[in-house]
């Protein structure tokens, strides 16, 4: 029952999202804070104005009223206002979304090279290739991504000057077409590499152990007995089975890469969700943080849903019955 | 005829909220010192049946009594589980890999707070099960023993509690052929020496021939034929028993009657005689020719009433005997 399977997974995702919404709301009300008070000190604002601002930030009324108001807002796609200049959180997030999609997408792609490496390493368990790849993976896995970023920035940008020190494109650039594309690529190469490097090891290790799990399966022996070449056996029989754990871990990893993007984007002044989160944390701009958290969670939940459904597609046993 | 050690009356066990009828109205009685082999294909409910005797599966209907006390309810469970012991198909799985042999045997003694010097009891039990000298085994771990030795440890642990009834779930199925005989001989020796009763679940008719006093053949949750081993295995009456015997290589001379189709599915029990879709008599048209084909397809039946020690649930047999077909009567088998 494929449809049933997908629906079940969707319901699960929705329940998680609902949980995140509730969690998100109350998390930010744990501490009784009145950002409006502190923000507008020194402005000689009249109490009416302050009250109006509080209303705007949904800070008046009981917790329950606030929650209801929050839900109502959410339903309208309204994430509230940033403490920074009253800009709607949704607008700010909208602006920062694309650079992050670009960066996280690219680095995920880079990190996924680890899957191929992992499959090969696992297939030739104990070989020199395996030992080298595994050691390197463990090494990058052990380094905090922002630290890699610091080292790279210090070396390749500050010292060697090969890459710009930050940003999405050259200052004041109004380039279009290929120039723009190359410019952005040039800016992205370093942060994407850092982020990719930080997670390539994890993909590699997961893919490797997934491959090793399948190594002793009888169907590989059968495939060989059929007269298949070794690499065909790997590609056509081992990999399709080793893909399963990788898919579900990729989704979880996606959340981690998002997390890693927070520090890396801030180091490379990359104008994405991560940098926005960093700024909101340092602000602190709680409504912004709240919106960002909701968005990131939704993204990761979606990724998990996709992974689940994909899993069902890849493994007929899961969704089969 | 000795007194009965266990008595099952119209036992029904269901799974999946009643969707699956694993055991469907079974009555059986086992006397003291008697060995009953419960045979049938996998999925026929034989393992479920013995698990229900020891309270591992709740009854949906019917009753079981052991030594006159009825099973069920938490109160008597512990006492019951001393009088009834069980050994399992896979001795490697049934021993906790982290427990030494000593602990495996002592576990039951401790649970039931058996009086006596524990190390002595354990050593005796091992010794009785053929593991001699026992102290060579005490500190070992299951993985250091062979399959046969493990099964002996399990038997020792079970017998250490001096049960009245031993339930054996495919006790030799996972062992090498050459080992089987020794284990079966050991089990039989406990019957002969200590008077324990055994219900042995097996798909191996050779085992039944080797040690059982009586054989009960199960099909889809129901006993379809029961009787003294020699009669049932030499002169099977039920077409299913006949087919089963015909495909066992150890039986000489019977023309092979290979049933088509798969192992039956207890969640989809056919109407009428539950065997009729695979029954050679029905398939060949023999039943229709003799005039009871419709009954096979339409009328469910249980074992014949107590007309003899060898009883069958088959329309062909009852028809031939001219007896009225039973539909709802529930007969109780008498011990041979």
């Amino acid at each position, binding site marked *: 029952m494929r449809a049933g399977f997908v629906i079940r997974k969707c319901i699960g995702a929705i329940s998680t999202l609902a949980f995140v919404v509730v969690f998100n709301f109350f998390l930010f009300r744990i501490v009784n804070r009145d950002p409006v008070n502190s923000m507008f000190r020194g402005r000689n604002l009249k109490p009416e104005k302050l009250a109006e601002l509080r209303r705007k930030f949904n800070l008046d009324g009981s917790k329950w009223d606030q929650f209801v108001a929050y839900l109502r807002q959410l339903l309208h796609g309204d994430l509230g206002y940033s403490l920074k200049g009253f800009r709607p959180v949704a607008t700010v997030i909208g602006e920062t979304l694309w650079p992050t999609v670009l960066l996280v997408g690219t680095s995920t792609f880079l990190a996924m090279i680890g899957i191929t490496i992992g499959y090969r390493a696992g297939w030739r368990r104990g070989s020199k290739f395996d030992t080298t790849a595994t050691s390197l993976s463990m090494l990058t896995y052990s380094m*905090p991504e922002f630290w890699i970023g610091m080292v790279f920035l210090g070396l390749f940008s500050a010292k060697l000057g090969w890459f710009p020190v930050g940003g999405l494109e050259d200052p004041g650039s109004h380039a279009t077409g290929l120039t723009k594309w190359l410019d952005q690529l040039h800016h992205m190469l370093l942060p994407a590499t850092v982020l990719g490097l930080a997670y390539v090891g994890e993909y590699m290790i997961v893919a490797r152990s997934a491959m090793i799990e399948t190594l002793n399966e009888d169907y590989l022996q059968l495939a060989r007995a059929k007269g298949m070449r070794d690499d065909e056996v790997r590609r056509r029989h081992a990999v399709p089975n080793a893909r399963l754990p990788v898919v579900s871990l990729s989704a979880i990893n996606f959340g981690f890469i998002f997390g890693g993007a927070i520090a890396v984007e801030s180091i490379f002044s990359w104008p994405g969700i991560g940098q926005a989160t960093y700024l909101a*944390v340092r602000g602190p701009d709680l409504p912004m943080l709240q919106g960002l958290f909701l968005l990131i969670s939704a993204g990761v939940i979606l990724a998990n849903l996709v992974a689940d459904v994909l899993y069902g597609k890849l493994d007929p046993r899961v969704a089969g019955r | 005829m000795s007194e009965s050690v266990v008595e099952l009356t119209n036992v029904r066990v269901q799974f999946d909220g009643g969707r699956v009828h694993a055991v469907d109205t079974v009555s059986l009685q086992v006397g003291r010192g008697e060995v009953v082999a419960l045979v049938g294909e996998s999925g026929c409910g034989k393992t479920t049946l013995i698990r229900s005797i*020891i309270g*591992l599966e709740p009854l949906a209907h019917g009753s079981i009594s052991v030594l006159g006390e009825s099973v069920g309810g938490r109160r008597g469970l512990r006492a019951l589980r001393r009088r009834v012991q069980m050994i399992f198909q896979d001795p490697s799985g049934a021993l906790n890999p982290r427990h030494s042999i000593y602990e495996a045997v002592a576990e039951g003694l401790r649970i039931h707070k058996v009086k006596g010097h524990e190390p002595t009891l354990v050593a005796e039990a091992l010794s009785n099960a053929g593991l001699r000298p026992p102290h060579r085994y005490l500190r070992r771990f299951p993985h250091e023993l062979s399959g046969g030795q493990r099964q002996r440890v399990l038997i020792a642990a079970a017998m250490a509690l001096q049960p009245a009834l031993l339930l054996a779930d495919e006790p030799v199925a996972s062992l090498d052929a050459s080992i089987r005989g020794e284990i079966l001989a050991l089990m039989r020796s406990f019957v002969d020496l200590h008077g324990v009763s055994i219900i042995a679940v097996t798909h191996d008719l050779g085992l039944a021939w080797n040690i059982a006093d009586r054989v009960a053949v199960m099909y889809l949750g129901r006993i379809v034929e029961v009787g003294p081993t020699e009669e049932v295995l030499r002169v099977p009456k039920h077409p299913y028993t006949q087919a089963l015997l015909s495909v066992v290589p150890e039986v000489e001379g019977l023309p092979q009657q290979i049933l088509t189709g798969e192992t039956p599915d207890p969640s989809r029990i056919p109407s009428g005689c539950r065997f009729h879709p695979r029954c050679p008599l029905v398939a060949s048209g023999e039943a229709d020719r003799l005039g009871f084909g419709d009954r096979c397809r339409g009328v469910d039946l249980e074992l014949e009433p107590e007309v003899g020690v060898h009883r069958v649930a088959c329309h062909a047999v009852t028809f031939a005997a001219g007896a009225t077909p039973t539909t709802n009567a529930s007969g109780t088998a008498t011990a041979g």
Partner: protein
Amino acid sequence: MSVEADLPLASPRSIRWSRRRASLAETGRRIRKDRLAVIALLVLIGFVLLAIITPWITDRADFNAINTGNNPTNQPPNGDYLLGTDRYGRSVALQLMWGARVSLFVGFVATVLTIVIGVLIGLAAGFFGGWIDALLMRITDWFLVIPFLPTAIVLAAVLERSLWTVVLVIGITSWPSSARLVRSQVLSVRERLYVDRARALGAGRLHIVGRHILPNVTPLILASATLAVPISILTETTLSFLGLGDPTSISWGGMLDQAQQSSAVTAGHWWYYLPPGIAIMLVVLAFTIFGRALEEVLDPRLRAR
């Protein structure tokens, strides 16, 4: 077979002890065969020892800014300062040593919290099953899916800054995977034939949990705890780097934050940000290698291969 084992009718206690010794020795033997794991363990022991003896061999006051007024600032490593000094003239080497204490402390305590929550929930879910299981696993799934680091960041941003907050945050965000692990292990152990046998023998729930389930789950918990420590350390590092750690205690992540704040990277003060990074890397690597080796030895599923 040893002579001792041949002694007839040994007491149950001595049997139990010899069994424990044997299994410990067996574990040790297997681990020892993995040379990398041994090196990793030595590295870990080294760091832990260093963290323990630091207060005895050094004086915290030596790198209180108030006492470093006459020290050179931002000095590269030299004879006086093995790893150089920072912007307040404080010895980086001293900070690194004291930072080890905080980083390891947070790593261990947060892991303990993670594991305690995880084990309680996993055990409850796995053992009771039914609606309790369904509910607990639903909650676990929620926590598992919501992104770990952003959640930790958001939590830490909202709560007050202290080491305990960091510990709490890590505990709250990382328990689900250990809960899942424990539950699945409990479920698998619960289905084992020997648990069936114990029930058939008349064993009660307590007996089964205590004698069969826990002992079989414990090694796995141990291994996964070892693997959780480096994650905790990395998380602490990241939180500190983002300014969400405890600013009044020096941890490796805090050092990196300080380095970043004082522009060590662009100023070329490599001795300020490389050592803590390398220390983190070493400890995380060592924990991971050792944890994986331990897992391989202790997890019967992996050992079978």
